[in-house]
């Protein structure tokens, strides 16, 4: 996880915890494998988007 996401406050960015809360179907699944992947692509998208403005 990068810094700053706790204060993102955006409907286009979810931390893993926020994501999980929205997706009860993941309960009981191997979240230790799922979490880093979901987070990784959330962050890749963030970096891509921000690079469009730098």
């Amino acid at each position, binding site marked *: 996880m*990068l*810094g700053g996401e706790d204060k993102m406050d955006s*409907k286009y960015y979810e931390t893993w915890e926020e994501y999980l809360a929205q997706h009860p179907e993941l309960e009981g699944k191997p979240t230790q494998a799922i979490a880093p992947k979901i987070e990784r692509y959330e962050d890749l998208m963030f*970096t891509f*988007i921000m690079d*469009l*403005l730098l």
Partner: protein
Amino acid sequence: MTDVVALTNERNQMFRDLFSGKTPKRVPISNPATQDFAIQYAGLDLAECQWDLTKLEPVYDKFCQDFITDTYPGGSIRIPSHYQLLGSTPIIMSSSGFMQHPEVVGLLAEEYDQFIASPYDCIIETILPRLYTELNGEPGKVAMALAKAMRVHSDDMAYLGTIRAKMNAKYGFATMGAALTEAPFDFMADFLRSFKGISGDVRRYPDKVSAACEAVLPLMVKKGTLPNPSMLGYTFIPLHMAPYLRDKDFAALYWPTFKKLIETLAEMGQTVQLFVENDWMRYLDYLYELPENTIMRFEYGDPKLVKEKLGKKHIVSGFYPITLLQTGTKQQCVDKAKELLDILAPGGRYWWQADKSIINLEASGPVVENLRAVLEYVHENGTY
């Protein structure tokens, strides 16, 4: 261990020393010329090479072979494909194939409140559709454009990454990671309000400018974070607007969130490299307050004064005027390198870089020869 691996290790150690305030074995060097220069140096077509990246491997090979540098000379570059697919207006290819950034306004003055309420929402919903034509329109069209752009960008980056890995393996460069971010005020200025727009905002609605900088700070921190803060590398932050502001506007609007950004990154254990563009001499006391070992690459100013004021706490770089390479004789160019080495190298904390990047090459001019002479000179005479 092969010689090349040993060389990489040695160079990595130089930068580790440099970044932690220890005197390295010698003054580390980064070639100021960029990919555009390299393509022209290889005699190839700028536009074609940036679209067909397979052309770039021999370009980099020749470039790395002929110019001494401790770091891979293919820093942050813009590749045209995803900009094209997104219908970019802020970054476009010029007729000569040069990726350039015309002045744009992504955020209107009356949208400050919306931005302050949620910067990232505002970026996605308002700013990007305004600046990137393919992100404006039917959701389906936007989704397709974004997917294609994201994919081509990741393919392009991966390809450039393999070239970089090959060059590192062949030439033994230091292996450093980098993240790019901006001071909140500069971010508000560059693609959002424009240089002109922000200059008016500072006088018309300073409170909103200040609130917007605060609001966007967490995004700037996040953008500037390396995948792993303890890895060898740095957050690169080019600084734009401060020299154009009055002292009191700088103190009230630029400095507070900029300082927080640097401090937050430093607390995470990251090295930060500031590209201190234009002339910051009147702000040296402010710069002094920044965390120890912050790297500051200067464009203009008085190297002696900077060494004196910041040289014991921070890492100084830059100052070498690349225009001299265009207009000077070889001897003048080398003399200038010597002059800066004499001032800035004693006691360590000096990284040889130029005052700006060399973004083009006039084939008939003296730049190639002068640049090579300077790099060689610093390499040979920069040992401690």
